[in-house]
């Protein structure tokens, strides 16, 4: 029963990893950019939620009303000011600029909030659970996170394939110059993609803050988990990313069951295993 329980927790944790991954996957799909500061943005969103909750007394989940739009704005600004000027030349410049952003964010958070770890208290919802069969229970909060990530991925798919913004994303992704000729302003489209990514990051940050302790140095690990979920799932496939997150979550849960030191390592090893056996991921869609 312990193992079954670990498996179930792993699946639910996978939902959170898919959320980490969705924003990363989105901007890679639209502009072939890998944002090294992605994890630090998630942690920054967690701190923002902390500040909002402390200032307004809102419930952590309700803080999304403020955190999501603020993060989206930050994302848009960051893209227009710092990243757009570097795009299109080579792979190095945008990568190193996001690396610089990551260093600044981490140390900025350290200066403002010290290295102490924080956590958002969500009240009774944290401990509430449903018992499926005797001895096997699902926490309400993990279930909510999982459902939220399924909803968000579904929403992103809708945006991508059913809206004019999504059409602009796909057009720019296929051929940025041709899209420009069709009156699509590439700079704005990229800004919108980053804003959307940052909005997902905001939700991921709030859930992260409720689920575990976080500190200014927690960002890189979130980036790595999100990245692993993307690669395991297969590039360009958001549902694949969800599957990748679940595979990663289950691997970590099983690793932790063997020995606590093995939790994260087991996830990395599964990632390398997938890379060795199926280099394009489990469910690739993009070439």
């Amino acid at each position: 029963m312990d193992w079954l329980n670990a498996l179930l927790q792993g699946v639910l944790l996978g939902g959170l990893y898919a959320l980490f991954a969705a924003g990363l996957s989105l901007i890679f799909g639209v502009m072939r950019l890998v944002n090294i500061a992605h994890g630090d943005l998630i942690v920054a969103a967690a701190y923002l939620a902390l500040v909002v909750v402390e200032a307004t007394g809102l419930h952590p989940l309700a803080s999304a009303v403020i955190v999501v739009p603020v993060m989206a704005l930050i994302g848009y600004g960051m893209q227009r000011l710092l990243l757009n000027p570097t795009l299109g030349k080579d792979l190095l410049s945008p990568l190193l600029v996001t690396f610089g952003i990551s260093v600044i964010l981490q140390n900025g958070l350290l200066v403002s909030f010290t290295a102490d770890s924080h956590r958002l208290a969500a009240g009774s919802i944290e401990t509430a659970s449903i018992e499926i069969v005797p001895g096997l229970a699902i926490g309400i909060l993990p279930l909510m996170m999982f459902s939220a990530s399924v909803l968000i991925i579904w929403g992103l798919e809708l945006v991508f394939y059913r809206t004019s913004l999504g059409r602009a994303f796909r057009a720019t992704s296929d051929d940025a110059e041709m899209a420009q000729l069709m009156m699509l302003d590439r700079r704005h489209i990229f800004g919108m993609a980053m804003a959307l990514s940052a909005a997902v990051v905001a939700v991921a940050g709030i859930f992260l803050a409720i689920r575990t302790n976080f500190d200014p140095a927690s960002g890189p690990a979130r980036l790595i988990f999100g990245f692993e979920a993307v690669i395991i799932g297969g590039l360009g496939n958001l549902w694949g990313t969800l599957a990748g997150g679940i595979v990663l979550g289950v691997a970590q849960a099983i690793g932790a069951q063997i020995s606590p030191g093995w939790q994260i390592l087991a996830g990395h090893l599964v990632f390398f295993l997938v890379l060795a056996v199926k280099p394009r991921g489990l469910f690739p869609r993009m070439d």
Partner: protein
Amino acid sequence: MTPAFSIERSTRASRLTAVLSLGVLATLAAAPWWAGRADIRLLGEVYSFMALASLWNLLAGYTGLVSVGQQAYVGFGGYVLFALAMFLGIHPLAAIAIAGVAGALIAIPIAPLLFRLQGAYFAIGTWVLAEVFRLVFAQVSSLGGGSGASLPAGIVTGIAADRALREMLVYWTALAIAVATLAFVVMLLRSRTGLALTALRDSEIASESLGIGIWRTKFLVYVAVAGFTSMTGAFIFLQKLRISPDAAFSVNDWTAYVIFIAVIGGIGTIEGPIIGTILFFLLRETLADLGTTYLMILGAVAILVMLRAPKGLWGMVVERTGLTLVPIRRRVTFPK
């Protein structure tokens, strides 16, 4: 009949540089006689960063392999040195060389795996690799597990009879590693492989159609860089005398600083990482008291350079003056 043209590599500036470098090298080699003990230590650190930055630059600037995970090999080299010295009683200076070989060997199975990741995803893949190394070494209890280990005093005193001689030997080792690394980078870039790298950088498709093995070239460079990086890592932790997984595989110490050095000096140039290292240490010695703020300044400077002068300081000098200090390129000259 005289040929219609000739290929020239060295320029007057480069010949002058070669002579001057020999002078500088001789002066630096004599540092134990003119510099204080603290300066010698600092110079040792300068040499290791110069080596790390040149190696990273060879990967990212010339081979197109942008890695944010070279700390994997720095830490690996350090741990190999500790293991060899503590368990097999091998002389630490010999262990540095063995660590280099071990680093290259372990990179052989790793490279094909990482090369499956394209472009920017390769970068994060290298980071995952470094994390795997960190977590694995944290599990090795005979090397102190998560809290790390110190090099036993007996091993340190075993390097040489008295303290002064020991410090000199360690210093010269650092200098030798830096010189060997720079020589390796220059020779590689002047060789056929170097020509292949230049072609790759300009167009992968065109160079492949001319029969250049892209994969093989990248593989060779990656493995060689891993070996030299491990060697440098082994030296770094011999100088520190203490190793722990978090210090050995730190992304800040062994990648963020190194990238900063290469970016401000000039990526894709030989001179860039050398100039960058000098600038970095000047900045560090003046601003290090600022602590976290100092790191934020480094990040901001790196972003600014990437946005305004992506070729770095040396790239700007070259653009203005056309100066070449280290002859890598070939020039065609016609007799007058």
